[in-house]
């Protein structure tokens, strides 16, 4: 009994030792920042989603799950939800694929590789609004580079109004999101590939492995962790990609490019329906948290 008390005391002493106090001091700013700018807003939004709100988001009356049930009864909500999933899945898949291909190309020794590596980062380094506005001009139905080039070269005499028709608008906007996101994937994959030991490739050559086999059995397993983290981050960012859509189509035409995040914005800031905006934000938070947890489980299982 006395011994256990002593151990507890020692632990307590260790816990509050001078060294750990210093650590807590260092952690304090970050903790305060997280509480103020992350935890508080999240809790606030969760509470708001359970209330009826007025036009500036002040809580008026507790309504429980009414906001959620109202949303679930709306066809438009489900259409937007499905589109968000499709948008995210397609964009992340294409970004991953292009990222892998480009990383493989940039991992090969050749003259001008450094220049290529620098150039590849431009879309990522440019701000998203600038990129979105640039592409809006590219897609312009009268003066746009794309439409004009297609017409002049005779490839397509009557190209669609890229941002004016539902299907073309969706793919035009998703392409911009992909274009912006590819450099990140490329650079992360490239870093992962450079960490794979060259000895493995040399041994594989001795064993008679071809290029494809080296990629499947050495490169891919070697960058597995990087791949997981990069696709997780890309999934979170893509699901929440507000800027590209808002700046290019504002969710139009006729709501055909809305995803959850732009739909939330429209409900909250254009129509002042804060309670529904909050309910959708909570749904988004749950979806993204589940995705992150699954990823974490897969990642840490391997670590252990």
């Amino acid at each position, binding site marked *: 009994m006395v011994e256990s008390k002593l151990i507890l005391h020692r632990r307590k002493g260790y816990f509050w030792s*001078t*060294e750990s*106090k*210093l650590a807590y*001091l260092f952690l304090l700013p970050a903790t305060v920042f997280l509480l103020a700018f992350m935890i508080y807003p999240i809790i606030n939004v969760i509470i708001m989603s359970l209330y009826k709100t*007025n*036009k*500036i*988001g002040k809580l008026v009356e507790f309504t429980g799950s009414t906001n959620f049930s109202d949303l679930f009864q709306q066809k438009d909500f489900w259409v937007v939800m499905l589109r968000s999933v499709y948008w995210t899945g397609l964009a992340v898949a294409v970004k991953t694929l292009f990222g892998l291909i480009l990383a493989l190309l940039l991992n090969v020794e050749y003259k001008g590789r450094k220049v290529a590596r620098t150039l590849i980062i431009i879309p990522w380094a440019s701000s998203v609004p600038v990129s979105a506005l640039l592409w809006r001009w590219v*897609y*312009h*139905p*009268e003066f746009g580079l794309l*439409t004009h080039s297609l017409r002049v070269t005779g490839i397509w005499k009557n190209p669609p*109004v*890229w*941002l*004016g*028709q*539902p299907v073309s608008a969706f793919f035009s906007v998703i392409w911009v999101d992909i274009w912006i996101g590819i450099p990140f994937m490329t650079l992360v994959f490239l870093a992962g590939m450079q960490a794979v030991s060259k000895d493995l490739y040399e041994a594989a050559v001795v064993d008679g492995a071809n290029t494809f086999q080296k990629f499947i059995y050495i490169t891919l397993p070697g960058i597995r962790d990087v791949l997981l983290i990069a696709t997780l981050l890309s999934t979170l960012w893509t699901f929440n990609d507000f800027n590209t859509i808002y700046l290019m189509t*504002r969710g*139009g*035409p*006729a*709501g055909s490019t809305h995803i959850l995040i732009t739909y939330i914005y*429209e409900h909250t*800031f*254009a*129509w*002042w329906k*804060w309670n529904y905006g909050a309910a959708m934000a909570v749904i988004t938070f749950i979806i993204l948290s589940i995705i992150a947890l699954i990823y974490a489980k897969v990642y840490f299982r391997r670590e252990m």
Partner: protein
Amino acid sequence: MKSRASIILLACVLTVFLCIPMILSAGGAKEVAKVTFFWAEYDGLTDAFRQELQDAFNDSQEAIEVDIVPVDWDLMHDKITTAVAGGAPPELCVIGTRWLLEFMEIDAVEEVTQYVSKETIDNISPGAMEAKLGGKLMGLPVAAGARIMAYNADITTKVPKTMEELRELAIRVHNPPKVYGLIMPGKKHTECTDFAYYLYAAGGDFFETRPDGSFGKSTINSPAGIKALEFMVQLATKDKVIQEGYLGLDRMDSHPLFYVGKYAYVFIGAWVESAYKSAGGEFDLRYAQIPPFAGQKQTSLIITDSIAIFKDAKNKEAAGKFLDFFYKDEWKARFDEMIGFPPVTISAGKLPQFQTPLYQVLIEAAQNAKGWPLMTEWAEVSDIIWDANVEAFLGRKTPKQTLDDAAAKIDKLRGM
């Protein structure tokens, strides 16, 4: 002991470091009342004028500093909403007068007469006081203008008397890519102005009006509404006399095309002349009324904008002083001239620069014009109507189907 001293020293350094910005700002701060003004970027209005006005006022004052923040019109509603909801509204903001009800519902705006001098208020034309609600002036009129038709007289000198005639004339002159008949935006922007032109021209309205003046059910799917949208769809998809790629072009993208000189007609606001000059237009620009459909009375859309003073702002008295400064002819008349709207002040209205053919047409258009329905749900209603228009343009629904659906949606939204 040494560690403890290190911790204390570190904490002190950290505290001082964090306090530096506060110390610096406190040391450099003057006793000035800062007035923030969300300034709408009207067509024709230059940034140089905004800067000049800001500098002139700030130079004339020691205790007040105004910060005029330019904001894109299409983003203004979102911007001011966010600011109000965040508890940090500006002192002043240019708003669509139709938004006032929303702000009044949440008690966010103040009566401007409390802060603006009587002299300034007395100089405002009574007809421009749309923001006088319940006997209180809740916004200072900044721009008020009916919509008109502008045409390129180098392409055609014919002025249509009816919409049907307009269609015939547009078809006759339409010869792309040299000449196009008409401009009609097909991409959603702030308000559903284009549908309103045709709806009012067909004798329709957005809502039934009850005897007490309140709004009843939506009437956009009335025969007039359907006629209006069918006509728009016909111009766009069957006659194809409007600009190419109209579905991808909103108002801000479409109107500049007119100044190039290839388009015969456009329904537009008072800013047309100044924007035409800014764009270097070189054709014979003329004005006429937006024609009604055959058998209907000419009815245009009139839009007024106001400057609101926000209740939670810090320096409302100072904001009032700025408005008194801005509403002097030296500045306000220049502002009116740039944006092209007829002056809202009596003194500016007498100035020679406002006695032109454009202003005559605008004054005539205003006589029988109708405004937007003043209701708190208008932002969402407008979006629903826009989406319904686009559905019809895309051929996903007939004009009747899409307007029936939209009307049902609007009524549901308003609890009817």
